[in-house]
């Protein structure tokens, strides 16, 4: 019996929390979602963006604080004509497998991802590129399909450079299992969807991203937030993020953790069927009704009571930090009385009934619905899976819905306003004038002209009340007191910027 007790006690001691801390220079991080594939062209999730920025580099780098563009894998770039960019590449860069980075890698990567047949999942990140050609070993020209000034932003974000020889052999599946990049961290172990172990890349070039300070990053997928918190308490996790506001508040009250709230580029808005795709007689084709909806909702109250943190009320159909996202547009103050009057003027003195759709954040959607009910718009509330709502939206049968959009962290208004107002299948306004202006704004290489045309488009969208923009989102990062990190407003977790205290 004594022996049994001793064995049990030893087992209990040995079974303490996994070692992951400052002492062995390993930061243990949790993801909530199973990441589909580390190959950034074959995943569409936030976690994918996080790994992409750690493992790979783009030709350009945007400073997350100043939003200025500087060279990363390229030292220089210039527009040869409206649709051709020439890049001069750095000469001292090697991939994690030792392969030197040259023009061939850029040519291969661009030609691979731009070819639709290769099935890149995030088509919008690459479908504006036509092809790439080598000028010499360290000079490359990239042809665009059309004028696209936001290209610079994309080259500093989702378009990362892959090693040509390795990728030709490994393909997306191989790259997903054994990723090879030029980034500050190399991937040393992948269990698909479950675990990613990163290690500082000692030969990392002199990049504006800076050198990694923490040697090892151990990322595990833990779907349950409560379990994540338990692991944080037991010391087997050092860093969690996307923590719900109420939980973050409790954790902040303790001395053991640092809780930082930061804005994200995700914006919540109400989309209304102004184009009458769900029926010509639908009330939202009437501008007065759309204005009534805009006046009906106390957005500040929603931000204060539900979203909290760094969230803010939004008036424009984009995220304020995005290039071209001007704030000088008509805003609609909370005025339920005026909303009722507008409804009466529109011919609905007793209000009306409508279907109301949402796909996430049920509490927010329900609060919005209660404001609408208060002015007489009775709603048949329908909460759907994202893909199902997408399909209905594309079919044009959704009269009004609560939607959100994260712009894929692209800091350019085209990533949001142009996404929804250029007569695509998700455009519920279909305003020819807006389309015309956005076409100019999206394709002009003159920054002033771009801003001018985005301003006109965004003002018209606000004047016509096509949407009711609501608020920006925020996220809570919770980490051990030992860790030093300042999150950025684009919701990209940057391991390279983390250090031990």
């Amino acid at each position, binding site marked *: 019996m004594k022996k049994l007790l001793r064995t049990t006690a030893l*087992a*209990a001691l040995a*079974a*303490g*929390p*996994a070692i992951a801390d400052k002492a062995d220079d390993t930061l243990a991080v949790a993801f909530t979602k*199973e990441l*589909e*594939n580390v*190959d950034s062209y*074959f*995943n*569409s*999730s936030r976690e994918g963006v996080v790994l992409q920025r750690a493992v790979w580099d783009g030709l350009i780098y945007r400073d997350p604080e100043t939003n200025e563009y500087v060279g990363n894998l390229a030292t220089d770039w210039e527009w040869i004509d409206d649709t051709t960019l020439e890049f001069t590449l750095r000469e001292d860069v090697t991939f994690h497998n030792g392969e030197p980075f040259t023009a061939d890698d850029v040519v291969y990567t661009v030609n691979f991802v731009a070819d*639709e*047949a290769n*099935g890149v*999942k*995030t*088509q*919008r990140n690459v*479908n504006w590129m036509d092809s790439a050609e080598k000028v010499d070993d360290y000079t490359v020209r990239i042809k665009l399909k059309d004028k696209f000034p936001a290209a610079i932003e994309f080259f500093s974000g989702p378009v990362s450079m892959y090693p040509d020889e390795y990728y030709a052999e490994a393909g*997306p*599946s191989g790259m*997903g*299992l054994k990723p090879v990049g030029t980034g500050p961290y190399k991937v040393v172990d992948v*269990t*698909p*969807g*479950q675990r990613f172990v990163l290690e500082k890349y000692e030969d990392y070039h002199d990049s504006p991203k800076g050198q990694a300070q923490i040697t090892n990053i151990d990322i*595990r*997928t*833990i*779907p*349950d937030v*409560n*379990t994540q918190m*338990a*692991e944080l*308490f*037991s010391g*087997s996790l050092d860093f969690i993020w996307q923590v719900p506001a109420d939980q973050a508040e409790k954790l902040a009250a303790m001395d053991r953790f640092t809780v930082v709230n930061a804005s994200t580029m995700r914006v919540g808005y109400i989309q209304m069927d102004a184009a009458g795709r769900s029926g010509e007689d639908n009330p939202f084709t009437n501008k007065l009704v759309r204005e009534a909806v805009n006046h009906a909702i106390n957005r500040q109250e929603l931000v204060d009571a539900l979203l909290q943190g760094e969230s803010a009320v939004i008036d424009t159909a984009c995220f304020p930090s995005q290039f071209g996202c001007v704030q000088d547009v008509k805003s609609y103050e909370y005025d339920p009385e005026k909303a009722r009057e507008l409804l009466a003027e529109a011919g609905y003195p007793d209000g009306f009934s409508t279907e109301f759709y949402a796909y996430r954040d049920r509490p927010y959607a329900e609060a919005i619905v209660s404001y609408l009910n208060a002015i007489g718009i009775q709603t048949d509330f329908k909460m759907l*899976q*994202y*893909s*199902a709502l*997408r*399909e209905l*939206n*594309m079919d044009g049968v959704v009269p009004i819905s609560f939607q959100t*959009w*994260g*712009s*894929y962290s692209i800091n350019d208004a085209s990533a949001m306003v142009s*996404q929804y107002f250029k007569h*695509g*299948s*998700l455009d519920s306004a279909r305003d020819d004038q807006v389309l015309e202006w956005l076409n100019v704004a999206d394709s002009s290489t003159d920054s002033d002209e771009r801003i001018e045309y985005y301003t006109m488009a965004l003002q018209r969208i606000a004047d016509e009340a096509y949407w009711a923009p609501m608020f920006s989102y925020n996220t809570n990062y919770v980490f051990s007191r030992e860790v030093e990190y300042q999150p950025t407003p684009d919701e990209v977790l940057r391991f390279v910027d983390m250090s031990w205290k």
Partner: protein
Amino acid sequence: MLSFILKRTGLALLVAFTVSFISFSLLFMSGDPAAALAGETASGEDIEAIRRIYGFDRPMLVQYGEWLFSALRGDFGESYYFKLPVAGLIAERLQVTMTLGVCGITFALLTAVPLGVAAAIRPNSIIDRAALFLSVAGQAMPSFWFGLILIVVFAIQLGMLPPSGADSWRHFILPTIVLGYYAMPAIMRLTRAGMLDTLNSDYIRTARAKGAGEGRVLFKHALRNAIIPVVSLAAVQMGFMLGGSIVVESVFALHGAGYLAWESIARNDLPTVQALILVFSMFYIVFTLLADVLNAWLDPRMRSA
């Protein structure tokens, strides 16, 4: 016995085929895999492109035929989501689920059967009441809550066991208890009821009258008969555990096949869901078959049924 097994196997294959066809049709109708695949940030045009590239715009029967043809050759295709071969993905996840399922059912049987027998020997005694209490509690307590309580006590407070993951056998202790405890009440009650019935039957009285020892009466005569429905139930529970351990896998971050199935449905990852449905239905079929065979061995009268 051989023809019995062959007949049941043939029937099992037919069931598996039917299940695969029905599930494919339902999944096909349930939503657009292109939208799920392209992700939240995709525009309508991007989704159209994905639909075209991945061939989701073709008729359902063509897609099903293609799937079936490949599946018969052992090729379950590539997961839309992970962009990895489905067979390898499932094999890896099944290891976790199988370990959990086998440990869970063993834990359930090892606790439920002795408790059920003890409760039946002394109805209304303290043991009987305690067993009843345990079984009611097991059924009333949500798995995620019980799991979290165990994590808080054993992983955080006592630091004895790891809170989540599947790296060693110690990682499986807490999830086994949660999953096993979920299956335990039904087995316990069925054992108790079966034992009570048998203990009151004529042949037990006869055995006792013939002077058989109490141990022999209980375990040789009574339990052998009382256990027959328990075997069938355990087989069903085992199948259920493999497919239905989603909550336990999610709380303990185990990344097993149950959780994979749940997530793949939400992601409209057709090849993965299809293969998992096939695997799970095969499990049900095999376990039911095994239970039938075991029962036929326990009670020879069943062989002619």
